[in-house]
C-alpha cells in the first residue's frame, strides 16, 4: 500500500535554462549538476587584458596547447557540484574520525615498533608537503583553466589535497603526542633527505608549468599515479607492524584516489579523444612526466621498501597501463 498526497500540478513554461536545454535537448529536465556547471563561465566580450599577462584574456582557451571545440565535453562522471562534493567528503571523513578515535583509544601509536614509527616519520609524514604542492597545482588549474566543467572539480580536488595534507599532519601529531615535533622533522626530511629530493624536484618543476592542461596531466596522471600510489597503495610492507594502523588512518586517501581518478581519467580520455593533435600532445606529456615521476620515486622506493626502486617501476608501469587505457599512445 502507498499513500498519495495530492499536490497542485502546475505546467511550467520551460524545464531548464536556455543554455542547458540547448545541450541536453528542449523539454527535458536538467540535473542539478548540469544547471550548476554548464556554460557558467564567461566566454566573450571581456573588458581588460590582465596586467600580469596581457597576452591572454582572463578566461582564455589558449592557456593550454590542447584544443577543444567545447570545453563542456569533459564532464565529471561523479556529477559533483558544491553540495554533493561536500556531502561526499563529510561522509568520507566520518571514517577518518572513527579511525583516529579508535587509534587513540587503543593506543595504536604507542604500540608501533620503533622501526615502524621511523618508517612512518620518514616516508609518510613528508607526503603532507607533496599534498600541499598538489593543492597548489589544482588551484592553479582552477584559476587558469577553461570551462567550469573542469575548473569546478579542480577546486574540489584542491580542497581534497589540503584535507589530506591535514590528515597526514594529524597522523604526525598522533605519533608525537600532539607536540608537532614529528612534523618539524618530516619537513626536514622533505627538504634535505636524499630519498625525497627527486619527488621534491618533481613537484617544484610542476609548480612552474604554465600550460594548465599539461599541469592536469602531470598532477592527476603522473604524480597521483606514481608517487601517491607508491606510498598509499604499494607501500603496505614499508609500514612494518603498523601496516593496519596506517591503512586505517589513510582510508580517506584510498577512497579519494578511486573517486578522483574516475573524474581525472574521464577528463583526459575525453580531451585526448577530441583530435589526433590532442592525443599526441597528451601522450607526449604523459610519457615525459610519468618517466620523470618514476625517476623521482625510484630513490624514495629504494629507501622506503629497500627494493632497489622496483615499486616505483611497478607504479610507473601501472600508470602507463592506465594512460593507454585512456587512449594515449605511450
Amino acid at each position, binding site marked *: 500500500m502507498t499513500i498519495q498526497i495530492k*499536490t497542485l500540478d*502546475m505546467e*511550467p*513554461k*520551460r524545464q*531548464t*535554462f*536556455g*543554455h542547458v536545454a540547448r545541450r541536453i535537448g528542449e523539454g527535458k529536465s536538467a540535473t542539478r549538476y548540469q*544547471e*550548476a556547471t554548464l*556554460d*557558467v*563561465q*564567461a*566566454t566573450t*566580450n*571581456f*573588458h*581588460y*587584458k590582465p*596586467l*600580469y*599577462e596581457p597576452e591572454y584574456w*582572463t*578566461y582564455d582557451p589558449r592557456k593550454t596547447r590542447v584544443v577543444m571545440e567545447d570545453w563542456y565535453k569533459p564532464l565529471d562522471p561523479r556529477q559533483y*557540484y*558544491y*553540495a554533493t562534493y*561536500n*556531502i561526499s*567528503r*563529510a*561522509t568520507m*571523513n566520518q571514517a577518518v574520525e572513527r579511525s583516529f578515535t579508535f587509534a587513540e583509544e587503543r593506543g595504536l601509536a604507542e604500540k608501533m615498533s620503533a622501526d615502524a614509527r621511523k618508517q612512518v616519520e620518514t616516508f609518510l609524514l613528508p607526503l*603532507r*608537503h607533496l599534498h*600541499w604542492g598538489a593543492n597548489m597545482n589544482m*588551484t592553479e588549474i*582552477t*584559476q587558469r583553466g577553461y570551462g567550469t566543467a573542469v*575548473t569546478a572539480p579542480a*577546486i*574540489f580536488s584542491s*580542497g*581534497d589535497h*589540503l*584535507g589530506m595534507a*591535514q590528515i597526514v599532519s594529524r597522523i604526525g*601529531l598522533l605519533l608525537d603526542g*600532539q*607536540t*608537532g615535533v614529528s*612534523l618539524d622533522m618530516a*619537513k626536514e626530511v622533505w*627538504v634535505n633527505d636524499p630519498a625525497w629530493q627527486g619527488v*621534491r624536484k618533481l613537484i617544484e*618543476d610542476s*609548480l*612552474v608549468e604554465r600550460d594548465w592542461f599539461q599541469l592536469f596531466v602531470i598532477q592527476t596522471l603522473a604524480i597521483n599515479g606514481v608517487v601517491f600510489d607508491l606510498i598509499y597503495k604499494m607501500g603496505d610492507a614499508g609500514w612494518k607492524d603498523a601496516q593496519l594502523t596506517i591503512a586505517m588512518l589513510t582510508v580517506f586517501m584510498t577512497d579519494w584516489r578511486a573517486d578522483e581518478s574516475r573524474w581525472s581519467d574521464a577528463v583526459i580520455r575525453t580531451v585526448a579523444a577530441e583530435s589526433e593533435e590532442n592525443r599526441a600532445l597528451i601522450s607526449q606529456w604523459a610519457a615525459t612526466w610519468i618517466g620523470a615521476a618514476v625517476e623521482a620515486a625510484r630513490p624514495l622506493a629504494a629507501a622506503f621498501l629497500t627494493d632497489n626502486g622496483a615499486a616505483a617501476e611497478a607504479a610507473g608501469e601501472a600508470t602507463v597501463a592506465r594512460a593507454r587505457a585512456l587512449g594515449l599512445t605511450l
Partner: protein
Amino acid sequence: MSVKKLGLKQRYAHMTRGLDWETTYQPMDKVFPYDSFEGIKIKDWSAWEDPFRLTMDSYWKFQAEKERKLYAVIDAFAQNNGQTGITDGRYANVLKLFLTGISPEEYQAHRGFAFAGRHLRGVGPRVAAQMQSLDELRHIQTQIHTISHYNKYFDGIGEFPHMHDRVWYLSVPKSFFDDARSAGPFEFMIAIGFAFEYVLTNLLFVPFMSGAAYNGDMSTVTFGFSAQSDESRHMTLGIEVIKFLLEQHPDNLPIVQKWVDKWFWRGHRVLGLVAMMMDYMLPKPVMSWKEAWQIYYTEAGGALFQDLARYGLRPPKYADIATAEAEHISHQNWAIFYQYTHAAAFHTWAPDAKHMDWLSEKYPNTFDKYYRPRWEMWNQMAKEGKRFYNMALPQLCQCCQIPMGYTEPGDPTTICFRSSQYKGETYHFCSDGCKDIFDAEPEKFVQSWLPVHQIFQGNCGGATIPDVLNYYRLANGADNMDYVGSPDEKLWNEWQADKLKTAV
C-alpha cells in the same frame, strides 16, 4: 625534556603554513610570478593572523550540513509551488536582476580567489583565499539552484550567462569584476576581499536577501541565511588583508589608499542597481536606499575607517559625493530602465500613487521636488497611450559603463559630464570619481567593451533593436517591456484568480 602540547593556534599553523617550504629546484619568483609587480612590500608573511581557523574536515562537515538543510528547503519550495506565494509577480524581476547581474560575479569571485589562493606567497592568506574560492562556487551554484524553479515560470531568467556577456547594463557589474580579475593578486584582495566583501557587502547581499524575506521568497532567503556564515568569514578575511598590508610596510599605504578610493567608487556605481531594486522593484520594500546607505555606509563604514585611521588610511575619496547621491541615484537609475524597458531583460513599471507617497516619505529632500513630477508626467503619457520610450542609444561612462544620466553634485537638474584626453582620443565619464579612475590607469580603461559603441560598430548582431535583442537572446515581448501586459503578469493573475476560486 618534555615538549609542550600544541595550543589551537599552533596546531592550526602546523595544519596550514607548516605545509609550505621554500622551493630550491625552482626559484620562488618563478613559482609566484605575480606577487611583486604591484609594488606591495611584504617583510614577513608569517605575521599574518589567520582570521579563522578552519581545517578541511570541519569545513566539509559544516558546509555539508548547511547544504543538506538548504536543498531540503529548495525541494520543498518547488514541491509546494512556492513561486505562487511571493508578494507580487513584480518581485520576480528582482531575481532576474540578481541572477543575470550578481550571480555571475560570484563565479568571478570563485576564480579570482583561486588566483589569490595560488599566487599569494604567504600560506595563511592562500589557504583562506582557497576556502573563499570554494565558498564563492557554492554561492553561484546554490543561487542557480534556488532561482531555477522561478525560471520554469517567469521570463527573463533562462539566458543568464549568455546575457551577462552581452547585455548593456550587465557590462556594469561584469566590467567591475573583469577589472578586479585583471589586476594583480593584492589589488584583487583589496577590491573584492576588502572593498566589496567587507565595506559594501551589507549594501549588496543583505538587501537582496532581506528583500526576499519581506516578499515571501522562502527559497532565496534560505540561501541568504545559509550563506551568512560564509559571508562573515569573507569579511574577516577582507579586514585582515588590509590591516596586514598596511602593517607590513609604510610604502604600501599610498598604493592601498589608491585602491580603496578606486574600488569604493567602482562599488558605489555597481550598487546603484541595488539602490533602484530597493526603492522601486520590491513590492514590499524593506527600507530605502538612503536609509541603507546611512546605516551600512555612513555609520558602519565611518566606524571602520576611524579604526583604520591609525594606519594613516583615510576614508575613500568622494565618499561625501556618494552619500549626497544616495538622495538621487535610485530615482535616476530606475528612470533609465523605464526609458529603455524595450532593451532590458526584466520588466519595469512606473511607481503608483501609493508607492510614490512612500518615496516622498523616504526622500523628503528630493522625491517630490525632482522625481515625482517626472513619474506623474510619464504616468499621464502612458494613460494617453503615449508611453515614453527612449529610442536613442545613450552615451556610456568609459569607466563604470552606466548611461550618462547622473546629475552634477549639488545640482540635480544638470547632467554631469567629464572627459579626458588620451592619445588623441576623448573619453567620457559620468563623474569625477570615474574620471579619476580612468586617469590613473588609462591604458586599462581605454579597453572597455562599451555595449553602445559595440552596437554602433556592428558587433552586436546588427543595427536595429530586434537585431540586438536577438544577439542578447532577449525574447521580445516576453523578457522586456512593462510588467503590465507581460506574460509574467498574465500568469501571475491566473494564479491569483485560481487562489480566489479555491477560497470561494
